[in-house]
């Protein structure tokens, strides 16, 4: 059942992905200027001959429809083409940027979900005014501050004034010469500030969400029944109530994965984290359409997959939601 469900969802996403590819292709090509202009501009001038040779090399001299069909044909064969500015295979370039982004987004989300729900539960379960105020202050602050500002503040605090963490990059250049464990610790060390910066916003959101639903759920009849049966409070809150209270958090996390990707662009820029977000920006500024479309194509596939996983997770949490 689950397999056909996944298949249906993936097939259903195909037209959307096609629209993304065609839309981006057309948008990039109708904007004034192209990659030849970009290269010539960076060089501070050039000759007509060189401009023309770049356009011929990339097929930019042909009609748009022809360029588009050629590109789509290649994509269907699994070939994302060559980056115009870096002259490297797009697939290779994107794939080397996927792990850092996944690591960043993954850590940020884990931090946000675990931290956020924990705070939310705590605030609902032991509603002392101090705790409540602290949680709501934190969440308003976290949700209202622009992410790049949080990033720069983190940097100034924990990298410049109290130099606990590195200011930029993903690893010490040249490795740590201490084996894979030391390298992993090194990456984790570099990861702390970006992951906390990105996770903070969502942690704020999830704590509010968990808090609100927990308050609702804890008032429901089945919780009263559980108390009446004489179950331990800890087990009631963490098993019976939390399971239902988690549903909105999972929904939000699934829906927001695209937004988290967008937030990652900013965080990656502030901390010099070598992920996909920075590559997107670079591709846009350089009018590198194969690279840009390649990234958007792969990330939209990623978002579709995450949504499918969310749906399946939903079923695991709540049997009523299982696909039939």
């Amino acid at each position: 059942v689950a397999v056909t469900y996944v298949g249906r969802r993936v097939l259903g996403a195909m037209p959307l992905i096609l629209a993304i590819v065609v839309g981006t292709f057309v948008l990039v090509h109708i904007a004034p200027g192209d990659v030849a202009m970009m290269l010539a501009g960076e060089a501070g001038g050039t000759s007509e001959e060189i401009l023309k040779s770049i356009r011929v090399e990339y097929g930019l001299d042909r009609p748009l429809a022809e360029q588009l069909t050629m590109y789509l044909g290649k994509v269907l064969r699994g070939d994302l083409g060559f980056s115009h500015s870096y002259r490297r295979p797009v697939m290779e370039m994107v794939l080397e940027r996927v792990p850092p982004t996944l690591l960043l987004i993954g850590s940020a989300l884990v931090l946000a979900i675990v931290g956020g729900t924990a705070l939310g539960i705590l605030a609902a379960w032991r509603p002392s005014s101090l705790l409540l105020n602290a949680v709501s202050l934190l969440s308003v602050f976290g949700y209202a501050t622009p992410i790049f500002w949080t990033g720069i503040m983190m940097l100034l605090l924990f990298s410049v004034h109290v130099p606990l963490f590195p200011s930029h990059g993903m690893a010490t250049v040249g490795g740590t010469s201490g084996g894979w464990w030391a390298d992993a610790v090194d990456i984790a060390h570099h990861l702390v500030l970006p992951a906390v910066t990105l996770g903070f916003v969502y942690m704020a959101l999830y704590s509010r969400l968990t808090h609100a639903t927990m308050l609702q759920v804890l008032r429901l009849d089945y919780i009263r029944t559980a108390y009446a049966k004489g179950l331990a409070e800890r087990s009631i809150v963490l098993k019976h109530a939390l399971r239902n209270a988690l549903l909105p958090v999972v929904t939000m996390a699934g829906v927001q994965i695209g937004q988290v990707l967008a937030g990652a662009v900013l965080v990656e820029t502030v901390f010099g984290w070598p992920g996909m977000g920075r590559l997107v920006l670079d591709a846009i500024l350089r009018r590198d359409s194969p690279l840009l479309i390649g990234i958007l194509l792969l990330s939209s596939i990623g978002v579709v997959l995450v949504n499918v996983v969310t749906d399946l997770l939903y079923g695991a949490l709540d049997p009523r939601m299982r696909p039939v």
Partner: protein
Amino acid sequence: VIAVFWAWLIASASPAAAQAPTRGGTLKVNYLEPVTLNSAVVSGTTAGVYGAQLFAGLVQLDERFNPKPYLAERWDISADGRAYTFHLVKDATFHDGKPVTAADVKFSIETSKALHPFGLAMFRYLEAIDAPNPHTVVIRLSKPYPALMRTLVPLLVPILPKHVYEEGDIKKNPASRKPVGSGPFKFVDWQQGQFIVFERYENFFRKGRPYLDRIVYEFIPDPATRVAAMETDRIHLIPFSYVPFVDARRLEKRPNVGLSTKGYEGYGSINQVFMNLRNPYLKELKVRQAIAHALNKDFIAKELLIGFGKPATGPLVSPNPFYSAQVARYDYSLEKANQLLDEAGFRRGADGIRFKLNHELLAAFPDIIKTVAEYMKEQLRTLGIDVVMRASPDFATYVSRVSNWEFDITTDFLSNYPDPVIGLDRTYLSSNIKKGVAYSNVTGYSNSEVDRLLAEAQSEQNFDKRKRLYHRVQEILVADLPIVWINEIQFATLYHKDLAGLPTGVLGLLDPLDGVYWTKIPR
């Protein structure tokens, strides 16, 4: 006692002997990430900052723009100025161990001519390149071309190993990402979006050099992070004002950071206002003069560029050997400017406005471009010229609009490069009015006298005569005023104070860093 005192005197009088360059240490540099490391096919600052470390050139330029030996240990120029004979150093090798020969030089120049953005400008009169023996190269020209000596630098004509790059399409050659050159440093690693690592080439032909073990280039896209990294010694060198001016002034006050504006003379950038002479108002000389009088260059240099600029008088920067100060001056005077506009016949309307101009705004380099553009808008408003700003969302859009003449005025900075044949010809020759070509003669300026003088100067061998020709060109250009030259940009190099031996030539950090060393190696 006297002997001891004497010995002490000698020791303290010769600090050079006491401080022989130390070998070792890693230099961490922060600059823009390049798209390729093959500097033979690209131009601009990234070509030099990275390429000049990997690839040697035939010559380097000294503090006075004069060529000095590099791969070529000496050279002779024939009396008719059409044959340049270069004698190469005998023991130069590429990083793969193969010797640098005349065939490699020939291959490199041919590649440059075909693929470098300035290839045609540099080698327009190239007839043939002979290699009578492995250590002698003769460049034959159809006409004398004295600019040649100032273009054969690592920045513009890097010497490539023929055996590595000759097969197939050089732009797609994987060796462009893992280059093999004969410069002081060899390529080790490039992790895109993160860093590039070079290390000392042990067999570099300048014996004992380079001093540094490694150069690591780390890429930090956010300026605030860049500043933080420099502040905490995680980065040791930032060239080309790659941090905002305000931050450079702040960093300069820190005990570990030095700031220098030397070494940008050969690049020679001028912040300038381009005026589209096809516009019915701007085609009037008096209107252009009025705009020139309305801009207070001292104020811009001191207040807007916080000292990182110097008032420009014309199209060449003042350290350039062909620079002339004997040109018309447009002193700051709003009164004069208003009077000129009245004389031109453009009266103020009921709303106080004479006419409207469209300012195409480049989104990059906000420190240099945006502040000046905003100031200019206010100044011109007081003259009754309503300036409408149109911001280009990105560089490609900007270049495309300007090179297709879709602007009235625009502010940008352009570089002289070491010889005026690159810096002046592209902007002022009427034959380079080419729609759709980036940084061509976009104003549409056309003066047959200037065309003739520039053509003559290209082939004038006598330095003084050539200088007089360019002086005359500057005089005419400043009188005709197709462009208002605002400031010579004084780019800043931020460096760690324990570093010594930074390049002193006019190309500065676009030169090899083989003389750089740590006086105290950081741990």
